[in-house]
């Protein structure tokens, strides 16, 4: 894995090229990775994703908590050297293996001396560093994250934060000693909640290793995934991130998994973060929100709202698209009224159409971000996203919807809703 910085401005973000492996296309950063559940882009088949979202090769973000049960099959599959992405229907796409699903809240607790809890659909599993490395060897991701305890958020006690740093250090000792047994590139985990001292320690632990031991960093422990990331207090998060970034070398990419809002994402990019995922677009879709915020600099001075709430009865006879001027399938062929009907009737096509729109919108957002950095306009873009041409800051937080389309509503035969 190689990472080259193309341009860098203070508080204006950085543009880079991420070269993950030979023969694969280079990825431009800031990069939006496609988050997956059970190996699939949520609600979308590979065919639908490629036909209606994008044909460009993506970096798929796999989570061990949703694919651990496939390890045995993948060990067999990979004997023919076919790869994890190929197994889930995306041959040729790059991938990153994380531990936790950024789309769902990770339960607290279950932390043990030598074992990391892994919350799968079967319940809590115990993951030892040994077992983790065996699984990585079987799954053969292009990139994997180091094992860490990230069970912290803004409310965590000092003691819990310190534990997460200490346990992570211990897990990582084993990973560094055994990483030569796997071919995948490693991301060093940086934990330590909202405590500058703890974060510094965690960075120091990574820096004690030779520089080529790992290819980048993954920042966790700011939130416990799911909707929590959409409502976290950016004024607490950003100073910590800034503190950490000051201690990092430029030449390694920095990943921040989770459903950060578009505004927080821009602020994190401004501080020098590089790798993000689509969990925000997913969290919005399953809670029946179509993303409608504007990121076009030349937008008319119209005030935009962050999302369209599909559940609102005002949509019942509104035969306009989700977002005017959007050229995704959902907006070109379908209406707010139809989406509202699909919500009312618990139909699976609702989240499918919302995922198509939200992913389409978010990919375009990231394209706009990269362009703005190139033209030194990230701060301008951040202000546009912050106020959407209005007077006050827009709230991008996502409140849970009572009626998420769950397994239970998909009819008999579908397993009862897990978690």
């Amino acid at each position, binding site marked *: 894995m190689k990472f080259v910085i193309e341009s860098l401005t203070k508080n204006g973000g950085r543009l880079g090229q991420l070269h993950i492996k030979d023969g694969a296309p280079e990825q431009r950063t800031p990069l939006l990775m496609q988050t997956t559940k059970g190996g699939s882009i949520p609600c979308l088949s*590979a065919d639908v994703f490629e036909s209606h979202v994008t044909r460009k090769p993506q970096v798929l973000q796999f989570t061990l908590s949703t694919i651990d049960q496939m390890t045995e*099959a993948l060990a067999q599959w990979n004997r023919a050297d076919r790869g994890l992405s190929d197994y889930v*229907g995306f041959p040729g796409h790059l991938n990153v293996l994380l531990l936790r699903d950024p789309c769902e809240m990770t339960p607290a607790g279950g932390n043990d001396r030598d074992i990391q809890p892994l919350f799968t659909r079967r319940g809590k599993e115990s993951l030892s560093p040994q077992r983790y490395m065996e699984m990585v060897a079987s799954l053969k991701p292009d990139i994997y994250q180091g094992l860490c305890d990230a069970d912290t958020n803004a409310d965590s006690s000092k003691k819990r934060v310190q534990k997460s740093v200490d346990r992570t250090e211990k897990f990582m000792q084993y990973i560094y000693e055994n990483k030569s047994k796997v071919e995948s590139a490693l991301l060093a985990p940086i934990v330590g909640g909202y405590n500058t001292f703890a974060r510094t320690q965690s960075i120091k632990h990574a820096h004690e290793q030779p520089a080529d031991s790992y290819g980048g960093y993954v920042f966790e422990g700011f939130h416990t995934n799911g909707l929590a990331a959409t409502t976290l207090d950016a004024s607490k998060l950003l100073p910590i991130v800034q503190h950490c970034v000051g201690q990092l070398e430029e030449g390694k990419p920095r990943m921040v998994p989770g459903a950060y809002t578009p505004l927080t994402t821009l602020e994190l990019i401004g501080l020098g973060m590089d790798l993000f995922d689509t969990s925000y677009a997913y969290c919005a879709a399953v809670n029946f929100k179509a993303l409608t915020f504007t990121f076009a600099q030349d937008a008319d001075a119209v005030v935009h709202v962050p999302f369209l709430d599909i559940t609102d009865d005002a949509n019942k*006879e509104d035969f306009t698209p989700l977002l005017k001027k959007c050229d995704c399938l959902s907006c070109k*062929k379908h209406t707010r009224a139809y989406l509202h*009907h699909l919500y009312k009737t618990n139909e699976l096509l609702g989240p*499918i159409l919302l995922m198509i729109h939200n992913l389409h919108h978010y990919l375009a957002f990231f394209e706009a971000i990269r362009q703005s950095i190139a033209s030194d306009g990230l701060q301008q873009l951040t202000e546009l996203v912050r106020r959407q041409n209005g007077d006050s800051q827009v709230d991008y937080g996502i409140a849970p919807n009572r009626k998420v389309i769950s397994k239970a509503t998909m009819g008999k*035969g*579908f397993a009862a809703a897990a978690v």
Partner: protein
Amino acid sequence: MSPRNIPPLTYKVVAECSVSKARAGLMTLRHSEVNTPVFMPVGTQGTLKGILPDQLIELNCQILLGNTYHLGLRPGIETLRLAGGLHKFMGWPRAILTDSGGFQMVSLLQLAEINEKGVNFRSPFDNSECMLTPEHSIQIQNAIGADIMMQLDDVVKTTTTGPRVEEAMERTIRWVDRCIEAHARDDDQSLFPIVQGGLDVPLRQRCVSALMERQVRGFAVGGLSGGESKHDFWRMVDVCTDHLPRDKPRYLMGVGFAADLVVCVALGIDMFDCVFPTRTARFGCALVDSGQLNLKQPKYKLDLEPIDKQCECSTCKRYTRSYLHHIATNESVSCSLLSIHNVAYQLRLMRSMREAIQRDEFPKFVIDFMARHFGKDPIPTWIQEALKAVNIELPPAEEKQEKETIKQEKHEQAIEVS
């Protein structure tokens, strides 16, 4: 849209089997041409669960079924009218057929009560009392705007016997006249009457004769596929197709198992619908010629083959049984993937039958299909009898067994009807 002087439905027989009653036809509707025999996937509430309209077009699906009962409740007649009909509302440019809503009343609602006026039921949403009359059913179907609509019929359980069956049949005939009278869009939509008469041959005959006196463009055969014996089932279909006119399409309601489709095409049916292929997909089952694979079974965990190597659907091109095993009934995308495969399977089966009829090789197709479908198991007597009635003789069991021993290897993943 076609000029007004062309009827909203024209049907012509393209080829007929020289042995059985099977026929291939071309039905031209306002929104699509439909090659028959055809299987119509069921999109109950204005969507085929988990599938985009674009994907259905890619599968070359020409006609979908919508349920009047569900659509009348949600989104409701007003919204449908404002949208300009169901085609526009759901973004489906091709043909649609709607049922009358009567069947759901009886199957879903225990409180339904039928009298001469209509079907009296309680709304499942606000528990208020509602009455679905023939006029009301047509009014909703006119708002939906389907290419083909069904009369409201008096549905009785298929296992009912005695005077109630005759009463339902007679009432169905009276109601078709009220439906025709209420039908406000005969230039765009074709109303099919429904042949009733339970499992009674003379009643079925009488019903067909009476309905044939009405000006209609096609016929449905109803009141079957509801738990009656297969022996009675095929005889009723056979009686109806014997008496229905040759130049109009015949629709057998609620039939969709592969073997039933093949037998009923041989008996002269042109149109079918069934929720089975998409419902079984949600249970993790994939349709193949030998029956269905229940992908949840542990034996598929390490099976790195596609569902069916011969299948050209997008699911078989990209995914293994092993991956589908892991996500079936757990990730919602598995519903979409298996539904695509199962709809593709049904449509391919129908296409194979059409092509066999056009080459006049349908009997051979039937014999080969039954061998693949039943493998080592004996072919049910009712299928043998039904096919024999239309001059298709299946090979005797002994000979079959010899053949099957050779094929044994191939049939290892035998039928797994859940």
